[in-house]
């Protein structure tokens, strides 16, 4: 099968999975609404102020959109960071980039930036700045040139810990009344976003995805090493800056609107690599759709297992991700350590 046909088949299957998970997420929830009532609300046959309309259209549907966007963005960021660092264990949270972005958001919130259009844009900008600072710090600590697997992971841990402490400092200076929300958000939480924020989230995620997607073929060559890529005609410096910016933007947008959710960028790309191989031209688009399904499923689980209460989705992804990370380290990448 040609790569084009494999991509079409993979996207077809992954889209079906996403639709199935989305349907599940739409019908499940704390409010007891029958599937028939949900369908009526979707079709616009229920009254605009009816419970089923409000729950379905204003709560569940936007939340599905947020979860899908966040999952897709995180998975693509994972693929991008892995290709950029030539390290299969790299991922926004492992590299400390999520931590940097979270620090940016906490600063923005302590400055009073809220969720209007301007506030949301400011939040994203602060998250992006934090992500760039964190990723830059990791890069410098790990010694710029040749990034070995161990030093990069170690640098990521150091940067992540630093920003976690910095966040704690800012939080302890915050007003007690605003503390609850921040801690809830820090665990990674998908909530309903106002339309302006959702639009901005979609826009920045799309920009990040586009940036990575147009360079997917060059990312394959980068896997051979920087010099080899240059010798094959790739402008490696320009490529690295663009992928760095794209991955940071993807991470920042998720952190700004959903919180620092870990490990999605590790689990989804590795699962897809087992099915599709290493070709980034297949992995990047597949990771977006696959990541959307994964996080949506995790979120549906998070709000179902302790209903009517809710778990943070970040708890679910970490419970899945930590064992996967250890398993990858002990089996597939043992030789690299």
């Amino acid at each position, binding site marked *: 099968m040609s790569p084009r046909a494999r991509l079409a088949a993979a996207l077809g299957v992954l889209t079906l999975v996403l639709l199935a998970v989305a349907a599940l997420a739409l019908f499940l929830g704390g409010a007891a609404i029958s599937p028939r009532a949900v369908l009526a609300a979707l079709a616009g046959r229920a009254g605009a102020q009816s419970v089923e309309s409000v729950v379905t259209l204003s709560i569940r549907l936007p939340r599905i959109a947020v979860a899908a966007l966040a999952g897709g963005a995180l998975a693509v960021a994972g693929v991008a960071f892995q290709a950029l660092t*030539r390290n299969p264990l790299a991922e926004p949270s492992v590299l400390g980039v999520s931590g940097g972005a979270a620090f940016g958001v906490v600063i923005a919130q302590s400055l009073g930036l809220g969720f209007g259009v301007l506030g949301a844009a400011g939040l994203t900008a602060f998250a992006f700045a934090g992500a760039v600072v964190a990723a830059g710090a990791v890069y410098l600590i790990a010694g710029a040139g040749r990034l070995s697997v161990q030093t990069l992971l170690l640098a990521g841990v150091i940067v992540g810990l630093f920003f976690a402490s910095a966040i704690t400092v800012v939080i302890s200076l915050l007003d007690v009344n605003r503390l609850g929300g921040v801690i809830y958000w820090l665990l990674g939480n998908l909530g309903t976003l106002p339309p302006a924020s959702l639009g901005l989230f979609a826009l920045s995620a799309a920009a990040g995805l586009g940036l990575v997607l147009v360079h997917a073929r060059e990312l394959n060559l980068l*896997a051979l*090493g920087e010099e*080899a890529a240059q*010798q094959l*005609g*790739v402008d490696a410096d320009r490529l690295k800056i663009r992928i760095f910016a794209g991955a940071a933007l993807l991470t920042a947008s998720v952190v700004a609107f959903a919180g620092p959710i870990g490990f999605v960028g590790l689990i989804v790309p590795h699962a897809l*690599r087992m099915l599709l191989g290493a070709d980034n031209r297949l992995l990047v688009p597949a990771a977006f759709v696959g990541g959307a399904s994964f996080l949506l499923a995790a979120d549906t689980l998070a709000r179902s297992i302790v209903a009517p209460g809710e778990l943070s989705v970040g708890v679910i992804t970490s419970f899945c991700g930590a064992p996967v990370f250890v398993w990858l380290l002990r089996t597939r990448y043992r030789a690299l350590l």
Partner: protein
Amino acid sequence: MIVEARGVGFAYPPSRPRRAHPFRLADLAFGLAPGEILGVIGPNSAGKTTLIRLLTRVLEPAAGEILLEGRPLARLDRAEVARRVAVVPQGVPPQFPFSVEELVLMGRFPHAPARYFEDAADRAVAHGAMAAAGVLELAALPLDSLSGGERQRAVIARALAQEPRLLVLDEPTAHLDLRHQAEAATLLRRLNRERGVSMLLVSHDLNFAAEVCDRLLLLAAGRPVRLGTPEEVLEAPVLEAVYGCEVHVEKSAASRRPVVQVVWPDARGR
């Protein structure tokens, strides 16, 4: 001439900690004729790797110029260079499980960088390259499942897929046992004969270079010492001066090419 180097000089920016003898390349001049196999030999830090980087525009010369088929290399962009010069590096990083065919298709990138997927013509060229390097039956296998010799042939196929005028081989015998060295020599000579690919072969292995190459360029500390046929370059006094150890040169009974042996300092009276 495929390649012509005219008075090429280069120095790396000063590094920290400073090296006792900072490396410089100076007064490098040679020509590589179409269909020729030129070997570049010399001790460690003679400038062999730097020469490869200069030939592929990873580095720019500080003095002199390099011509590629008569055109200044400095005026070609990366893709233009990559359509003419292909490098076979020493190893392939094993982190990501690319298949042999995926690796070989990467060689088509400089021919159409804007394309997302390779087209049928690209796949036909890759197919031919894999057949020429003897890896066609390995096409679907992941690289990390191959032996050292198979992996090297896959990388040679990737370089051939670039349809280069010049193939640059960086230490092609590193990590290869004797049988695979012999196979590599046969493969390179066959590609040279059948496809007319010119080659620049950088090697520590003087005997391999003497067997495969038409001419040799001996470098020492960034300067050309001798350029000529293997018989002209591999003379005991020259090698002893450059490498700083006693050697013994004789002729191979099979090929009549020179064979260099180290005379171990403590060999006598053992």
